[in-house]
């Protein structure tokens, strides 16, 4: 175990226990800035933690970031760890981060699918779904990015419990999804929601379940353009951007379609590196560059959220 978050190794992949230790250490080191909130327990009983970065105030407008809802996308959880440390380093040092945190809270869920993540470390590195059981089927797990109440069960998700895109019996059937839904509804003041996946280098906005353009499509497109420009400025990594359905394929019941329909205008989802060499098996040497470039895009979205209140 690292003795502090300064000696934590950000350039390697870590187990769930190591990440949870990191979270505790970060909170202990920055009690005035960071707190840990448990928003629920997984199907297998693991705690689901969210880091809250706040400089005070009461129910301030907030930005939500989650990483790793698909458990095998290891670079996303690893990037989430790096983001958490970066926020604590930059608050009070970097004017953009300082300004954002002086006005908004940031919530960061580093391991959004803890059961699946633990399973990728112990049994099956390629596991993507939750670990819940479906009655009447031998197959396990639901795709937590098809389980949200936005076009739930429509084309772009599978009704087959053995499929990797199985949508589940009902919307929010997965406690990992329901916990976020409850949190977002109870909070009531989340203004941006960014869900991070890998891979294929995309920055996407709603919708995925319908080809109808989102009412804010023009603005979202401009924000996405600015974000991918910022991202590319570091290492030249090229991202495509657009609506989910236009840019990749139809996907129903996805996270940011639900958040957008809840009124969270700045709803985006990332697909991080790469373009076709390693896929989900991105070497650990690329964790930090991936996180660094993604951070620039996140800052763009967060800054836009701050300067465009609604």
């Amino acid at each position: 175990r690292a003795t502090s978050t300064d000696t934590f190794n950000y350039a390697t992949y870590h187990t769930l226990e190591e990440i949870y230790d990191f979270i505790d250490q970060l909170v202990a080191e920055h009690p005035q800035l960071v707190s840990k909130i448990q928003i629920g327990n997984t199907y297998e009983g693991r705690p689901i933690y969210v880091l809250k970065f706040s400089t005070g105030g009461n129910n301030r407008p907030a930005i939500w970031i989650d990483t790793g809802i698909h458990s095998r996308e290891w670079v996303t959880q690893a990037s989430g760890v790096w983001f958490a440390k970066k926020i604590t380093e930059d608050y009070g040092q970097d004017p953009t981060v300082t300004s954002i945190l002086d006005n908004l809270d940031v919530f960061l869920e580093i391991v959004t699918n803890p059961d699946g993540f633990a399973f990728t470390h112990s049994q099956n590195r390629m596991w993507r779904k939750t670990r819940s059981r479906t009655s009447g089927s031998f197959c396990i797990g639901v795709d937590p990015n098809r389980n949200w109440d936005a076009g739930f069960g429509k084309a772009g998700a599978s009704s087959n419990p053995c499929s990797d895109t199985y949508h589940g019996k009902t919307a929010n059937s997965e406690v990992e999804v329901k916990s976020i839904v409850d949190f977002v509804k109870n909070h009531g003041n989340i203004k941006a929601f960014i869900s991070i996946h890998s891979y294929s280098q995309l920055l996407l906005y709603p919708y995925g379940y319908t080809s109808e353009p989102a009412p804010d499509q023009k603005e979202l497109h401009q924000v996405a353009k600015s974000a991918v420009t910022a991202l590319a400025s570091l290492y030249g990594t090229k991202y495509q951007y657009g609506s989910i359905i236009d840019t990749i394929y139809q996907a129903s019941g996805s996270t940011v379609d639900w958040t957008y329909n809840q009124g969270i205008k700045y709803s985006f989802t990332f697909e991080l590196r790469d373009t076709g060499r390693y896929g989900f098996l991105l070497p650990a040497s690329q964790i930090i560059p991936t996180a660094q470039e993604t951070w620039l895009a996140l800052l763009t979205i967060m800054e836009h959220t701050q300067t465009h209140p609604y």
Partner: protein
Amino acid sequence: SEDFVGHQVLRISAANEAQVQKVAELQDLEHLQLDFWRGPARPGSPIDVRVPFPSIQAVKIFLEAHGIGYEIMIEDVQTLLDEEQEQMSAFRA
């Protein structure tokens, strides 16, 4: 732990809508145990699929029979996983 020895990840290039549909048909063949990392979407959009060793020949024959281009993106998944584990172990040590 699940063993991925001999599993390959193929990057498939479907040139037209008909080829996209052909690749989509592969998704329904459950006995092949394919794992689509990037699903079939539209012509020109790459499709990545992890193919277990026992299915490799059948998939490649299927693609070649329909004139669908592909290249091997990952030669052996388990080799990469072993490297990943070694790296994690080295850092722990």
